[in-house]
Structure formats: structure tokens, C-alpha cells
């Protein structure tokens, strides 16, 4: 060590220490620089998002594309299911409690959000009660999403015999996994009844979407062969976190047909390549022929999605998009989404902002025949980073029911128009652009 010929000596002791020079052989410096560059390239090549430009050919009818959409995103279409649409907390929690009470052998729940409030206590107590009566209860909780949860409740459940697996808890040895969360929301009862939903376990999701404190959301309750697929999705993260393999009839029973709905379960856990969800969104938009309805709280399309949507409009598809207005839990996402609105509006997309509360449901409805419900947002975090689960339903009645709800929601919306949108304030435009810079992580 020697003292450098410093221009201005640093004031603090640490500063002075750091400003010293060390004498190293050239080879060592070259090696160090090489190592930094090499490791950087390695990690970048492992983690960087591979730009995928998906080319979807034209089809005559949307139905023609459905087997491809289902198969290419990880699950074939299964016939013979019964579907019940569950709107908001009031439509969701009561049947959930009923199914908890009815379960005889096992209950599985995977969720991202578990915050605080009366409803968390009720769910925890209901599950603990079943565990005390000998029902196997397994919960996969995202470590980040449940960070705000009440530890006493988790302890109470564990004491009652509920098995809780924290998904990707903060550990130094798992540094690279920390950005990958499970955003899936599913529940399975005795391997025979499954829920796929957007709701979190938190007070915000109770009620009927009536005000800013009670959010709007949608889920479905499923019976029939598709339940095996939902169970398999739960089993993936469960075995990852606990190594416990779910074997036997009580988890994967042979399921008889229960209804007339054909369904396919799409779950993604992106690890390089094109994620199932991204592929599904792009294929569905590219093959819609008459009508495309998207309801999503986090809508940040990339350029390719914008092009696909614009093309759809050009083909004569009526495209309606509903996103949150002032009431949002993530204003940065809202602004990042705005970046592409001008183009979309000019191309003829109808954009509506829901004003009554946060519309948190993730819904797509195409050509009155296919609906998609679940946890998947329309942003890079859902399409390229997080684990998601949604179910595709091929059935006119289900599509009609969801579309009626969409149209009822329209009455609480403000429609954006291209002229006034282009005149939004400079500050607003700046916020939009700045937020969009972060889009890969949103």
C-alpha cells in the first residue's frame, strides 16, 4: 500500500482508506476484470429475457385454434366439466367456506396475497379446524405476498396440523430465485373440486366491489376431469418446496364427467424460452375473429401485443379493454400501461377505466365461446417471471355470463378517447414514459 497523489484528500477515515492504492500485478488485474465480465455475461445469458416474436398464422374460425392454444400451453382440452362463476368476495368466500367444511380428506390452497383482517382469521380458523379433525391441509404461501400476514395466525394453523410451505423465502443461497414469485391462486378439495381465482386472502377482497376498500374480482369453481390438472399444478410447487409427493386416489381420483364445459388448465413457471402464458395471450389475440374482451388490473402490453391487438381490430374484431382508473394499488403499473394507449386508441381499441373500485379480475373472453380466468396479469411480471395459473373454458354459457358481468362493469367506467388522451398533461406523459422503462420488472 502507498499513499496516492490525491488531489483533494477525502475527509473521513473510510474515505481515506478507500482512496489508497493497492499494488497488483498486471495479470491479477486482467484476471479480475476478466472474471467480472465473464460472470456478468454468464448471468446475463442465463437470466435475460429471450425476445420471442411469435408468428401465428391466420385461421378461419377461432375454434380452429383452440386445440393448438390448449396443447401448446401445456394441457389438452378435457371435456365434461361443471363451472360456477364466483364474483367478488361475496360470491367467492361463502362457497369456499362451504367446500372447506365439506372436505373429508384433503384441502390444498396456493395463494400470493395473505394480508391481515377479519377474513384471514376466518379462513385460518376454518382450515385449522379441519386439520384438527384429521383432514390433511396444505398451503403454499408466497413468502413475499404473505409477508404482511399475521404470524400468530400461521402459527395457530401449524399447531393445528396445517402444513404450510413458504414459496421462495428470502435466503442468500436462493438469491437468483427471489424475483420469481408464485402468483397462482388455486384451491383443491379432496381432488374433486377446484377453485381458480384472482382473489387474495385479505379484507380488500371481501364484499361486493362496492367501494375503494372492497375490490372487484372473479374466480371459478370447477368439478370434473379438469380438477386433476389443477391438482397437478398445486403439486408442482408443493414438491419443489417440501419434497412431499402427493400420491394416491385421495389426491388424483378418477373423475367422472360433471357437466358440459370443455376446459384446459394453463400454468406457467417461466424459466427461459417462451412462457405458456405469453404464448397463450398472443395466440388467443392473434386468432380471435369477432370479439375480444380483456379485463385486467395490470395491463402493460409489449410492442408485439400492441401489434397483435391492432391487427385484430383491422380484421374486424371488436376489441374492448377494461383497466383500473384512479383506484389502483400500483400507480407505476398504471402509468407504464398508458405508454401504449395512444396507439391502441388510434387503432380503434375501446379502452375503459373502471372507476368504482380496483377491478382486479383477470378475464379474457373471445368470440362468445372461450373465456380465460385466473391469476395472470397482462404484464411482463406475469408473462415472464412469476408462476401463474388460469383456466380456459370453452362454453357459450360461461362466456355469456362473464360478458354480462363485463357489460355491467362498463356502467362504472369512463371511456378514453384518442383526442383527449393525446392532450393529457406533460407531467402525466413523463410519468408514463418513466414507468414504462421498468416494464420488464412490472
Amino acid at each position, binding site marked *: *500500500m502507498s499513499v496516492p497523489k490525491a488531489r483533494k484528500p477525502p475527509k473521513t477515515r473510510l474515505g481515506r*482508506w*478507500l*482512496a*489508497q492504492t*493497492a*499494488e*497488483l*500485478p498486471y495479470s491479477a488485474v486482467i484476471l*479480475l*476484470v476478466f472474471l*467480472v465480465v465473464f*460472470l*456478468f*455475461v*454468464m*448471468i446475463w*445469458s442465463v*437470466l435475460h429475457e*429471450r425476445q*420471442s416474436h*411469435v*408468428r*401465428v*398464422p391466420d*385461421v378461419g374460425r377461432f375454434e*380452429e*385454434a383452440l*386445440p*393448438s392454444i390448449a*396443447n*401448446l400451453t*401445456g*394441457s*389438452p382440452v*378435457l371435456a365434461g366439466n361443471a363451472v360456477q362463476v364466483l364474483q367478488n368476495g361475496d360470491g367467492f368466500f361463502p362457497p369456499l367456506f362451504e367446500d372447506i367444511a365439506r372436505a373429508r380428506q384433503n384441502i390444498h390452497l396456493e395463494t400470493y396475497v395473505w394480508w391481515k383482517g377479519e377474513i384471514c382469521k376466518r379462513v385460518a380458523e376454518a382450515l385449522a379446524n379441519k386439520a384438527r379433525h384429521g383432514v390433511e391441509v396444505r398451503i403454499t404461501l408466497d413468502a413475499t405476498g404473505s409477508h404482511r400476514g399475521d404470524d400468530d395466525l400461521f402459527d395457530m394453523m401449524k399447531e393445528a396440523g396445517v402444513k404450510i410451505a413458504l414459496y421462495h423465502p428470502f435466503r442468500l*443461497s436462493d*438469491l*437468483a430465485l427471489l424475483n420469481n414469485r408464485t402468483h397462482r391462486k388455486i384451491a383443491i378439495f379432496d381432488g374433486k373440486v377446484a377453485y381458480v381465482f384472482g382473489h387474495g386472502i385479505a379484507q380488500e377482497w371481501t364484499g361486493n366491489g362496492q367501494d375503494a376498500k372492497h375490490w372487484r374480482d372473479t374466480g371459478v369453481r370447477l368439478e370434473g376431469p379438469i380438477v*386433476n*390438472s389443477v391438482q*397437478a399444478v398445486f*403439486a*408442482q410447487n408443493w*414438491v*419443489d418446496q417440501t*419434497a412431499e*409427493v*402427493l*400420491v*394416491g386416489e385421495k*389426491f*388424483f381420483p378418477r373423475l367422472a364427467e360433471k357437466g358440459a364445459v370443455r376446459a384446459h388448465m394453463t400454468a406457467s413457471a417461466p*424459466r*427461459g*424460452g*417462451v412462457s405458456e402464458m405469453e404464448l397463450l395471450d*398472443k*395466440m388467443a389475440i392473434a*386468432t380471435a375473429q369477432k370479439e375480444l374482451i380483456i379485463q385486467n388490473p395490470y395491463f402493460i402490453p409489449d410492442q408485439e401485443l400492441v401489434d397483435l391487438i391492432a391487427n385484430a381490430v383491422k380484421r374486424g374484431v371488436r376489441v374492448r379493454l377494461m383497466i383500473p382508473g384512479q383506484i389502483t394499488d400500483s400507480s407505476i403499473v398504471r402509468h407504464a400501461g398508458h405508454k401504449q394507449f395512444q396507439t391502441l386508441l388510434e387503432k380503434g381499441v375501446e379502452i375503459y377505466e373502471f372507476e368504482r373500485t380496483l377491478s382486479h379480475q383477470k378475464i379474457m373472453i373471445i368470440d362468445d365461446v372461450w373465456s380465460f380466468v385466473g391469476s395472470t396479469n397482462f404484464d411482463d411480471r406475469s408473462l415472464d417471471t412469476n408462476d401463474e395459473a388460469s383456466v380456459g373454458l370453452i362454453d357459450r354459457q360461461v362466456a355469456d355470463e362473464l360478458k354480462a358481468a363485463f357489460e355491467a362493469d362498463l356502467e362504472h367506467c369512463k371511456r378514453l378517447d384518442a383526442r383527449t388522451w393525446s392532450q393529457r398533461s406533460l407531467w402525466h406523459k413523463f410519468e408514463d414514459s418513466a414507468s414504462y422503462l421498468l416494464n420488464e420488472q412490472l
Partner: protein
Amino acid sequence: MIHIHLWLFISMIAAIILLGMMLWTNLRERKFHVRVPDLDSFEEGLPSIAGMTKAIILEGNRAEILQNGDGFFPALLESIAAARETINFETYVWWTGGICDEVAEAFAKRARERVEVRVTVDAMGAMKMKPRLRNLMKDAGVKLSLYHPIRIIDIGQLNKRTHRKLAIFDGKEAYIFGHGISRKWTGHGQDEEHWRDTGVRLHGPVVNAVQSIFSQHWIEETGEVLVGERYFPHLEHAGELRMHVLAGAPLGGVSDLELMFKMSIAAAQKELLIQNPYFIADEETTSLLKRAVKRGVDVKIMVPGKVTDSPIVNHAGHRHFSEMLNAGVKIFCFERTLIHQKILIIDGMWSHVGSTNLDSRSFDINEEAGVGIIGEGIAAELKAAFEDDLKACEEMKAESWDSKYHLWHRAIDRACYMLSGQL
């Protein structure tokens, strides 16, 4: 010598540590110990084995077993000639000369006749494929995609190869096999120059699932999405067999193939037959096999003897032989040629055929594909072939293995086993 500021030095060291951590946490294999509960019958475990490996059991399929090159290549060439709209093909090994030219020419011919031909070849596996062959196909209109070509920006991906071997014709007929496209795989396993291998030809709803596995890499490398009846037709029942297709695409988490393999050992009740060219049992597999023997399962494992294309893997595999032999696992070394087939047969009712070796490279690194077939007829046919192969085997005996197992051999085995994460 050079003077550098201490803060620069410290930040470089910190960057190396941080990036090293990031890389390690991303790539390291996460150890897990599968806990499989006891079952009364293997059948009870099947929906779980399928479900846990992201597949579901599809009904109404038919399968034909294709043994060695003589059983495989003529059938493949026939299917190529018979295809009307689309041919999709994926493989790891594709060299030059003889059968390699023949297959390339068959694809080229059909492409000229306006059949859509798509071929995915692993960039590493196709190193010995001459540009002449590639150009022959490309000029004829075959869409040829190299999987994970060697590029600096993909350096982190280079270790990951596609080892899948698939062919799908018109979306209605599928092949899953272990064969490479090389002269070594022709013939009928008669000598060291002609290897032993097994594949299956499938009809029925399961073909949709095989098509979707092909599509994964195709989309990843080319961006082209396969949509429509030509690729995914509605498939009527074509037979009585129930099947599930497995496609391993590891990277983080528990590997589907490893899970399938370990679950099936844990669930076997009567008989477990394994034929595999690369068999490296880790501690857990060893203990699962020992427990199976204790339950009364007849466990027979067939591995290559002197004829192997990978002595390191052979040696690494030896690591737990003594322990397994002494516990009553029967191990046979096939001496006539390299057995390259990857077969599992359990309780005379379930078989698995595909590309998956029983080593870390197949479980945790490469992309693999295989099919589980539920049916006694197919299991019996594969078992008959297994028993026929036994005639060309030497059984290893615990006493003679232990007495001949010298320090030097032990040291080599241990050294090879230490590399097993990459083998």
C-alpha cells in the same frame, strides 16, 4: 505492476462474489429427497406420477414397439413417404453418411412435394453433420432449426441440449425413440458397430401431446406457432392403451423425469426392470431400490458391459453397485454391443420408453421426452425383449464384484462419480 484504487479493487471483488452467487444460486442443483408414501398397488400411483410430471393420462391409444435400427428406420422412412401435410422431427444425434443421408434425402424429397417438413436438431449433436446435408434439406424447403447454437450471448445455455427424439406425421402418428440418426443405430444390435435401441410408434389422442412437446423448442428457436387441424387434429380413439407423455425441461426446481423415475421405483410392488445405457444411481435411488427389494420387488437392472461410448459414466455408475448387489438388486452387463434403449417396466403393466438416461444430465440439464404406457400387452412384449437381452448378459455377483473391486477401480469410480452432476 499496477496501482489501482482500493475502492476499485474492493468493488471488483464484490462484483465477482455477487455475480458468482447469482450464477450459483441459479444453476446449482437443489437437493431434494422425494418422500413417496407406501402404496398397495402400483396402479394407484399412476395418476399421481402423471399429474406430478405435468401430464395427464390419455385414453384410447395404440402402440407398436420398434426394436433396433431394423425395426425403426424402415418404419420411419415409410411414415415419411406416407405423410400428406406435415412432418415434424426432433433429434439429438445426426451425423453424416449412410442412413443419415437417406433420412435427409427422404425429408428433402417430401419438402419438394410440398409437405411441410420441420426438423429440430441439437447444435451439439449435429456437429458431425456435414453442411452438405443441411443444405440439401434447406434447399429443398425443409425448415431446419439448430437447437441452442453455440453463441457467446447464450454461453449460459450451452450446457443445456435437447436430447429429445420425436417424429410426428400429420399430427396423427408419433414416434418416440432412443435412436440417433447415425450408422451406429442401423442393423439389429448384432455387434459393436450396430447398437441396440428401442422406440415406439403411437396412434390416438396421445399424439397431440407429443406434437406439443415438439412445438416447445420449435417456437423457442423460430417463433413459429403451429396452429390448426394439420398439427392438432381432433384424434379419435385408436386403441385401448392409456398413456402419458413426459417432457423434461429442467432448470430450477425438481426435475419431472427424476420425479417420475423415483416415484415409479417407490411405487413398484412386484417387478422392476430397467434397461439404460447411462445409469448413475445417487444415494436416494440406491436406497429406493434397496427398499423395493425389501418389499419383495424383483429388481433387475441392465447396463452396458465393456461396450460403452462413455467409460466415465460407466465408472460413475459403479459407485453404488456393491451396496445394491449386496442388498439383492440384480445387475446385468450387456456384452454384445451398446444397449442404448431407455426402458422401464413395472409390475408387468406399465412401461416407459424414451430418451431419458438415468443420470444427472438427463434429469437436471437436458431436455428429454418419453412416454408412459399402461397396458399388459406392451409390458409383456418389452419384457420378452429384456429377457432375450439377458442371454447376452453377464450377471454381476456381489462376492465376485467385491473381491475384484480393487482400490484403484474404487478410486476411479469415486472420481467419476464426483463429476456426476454433469454426466
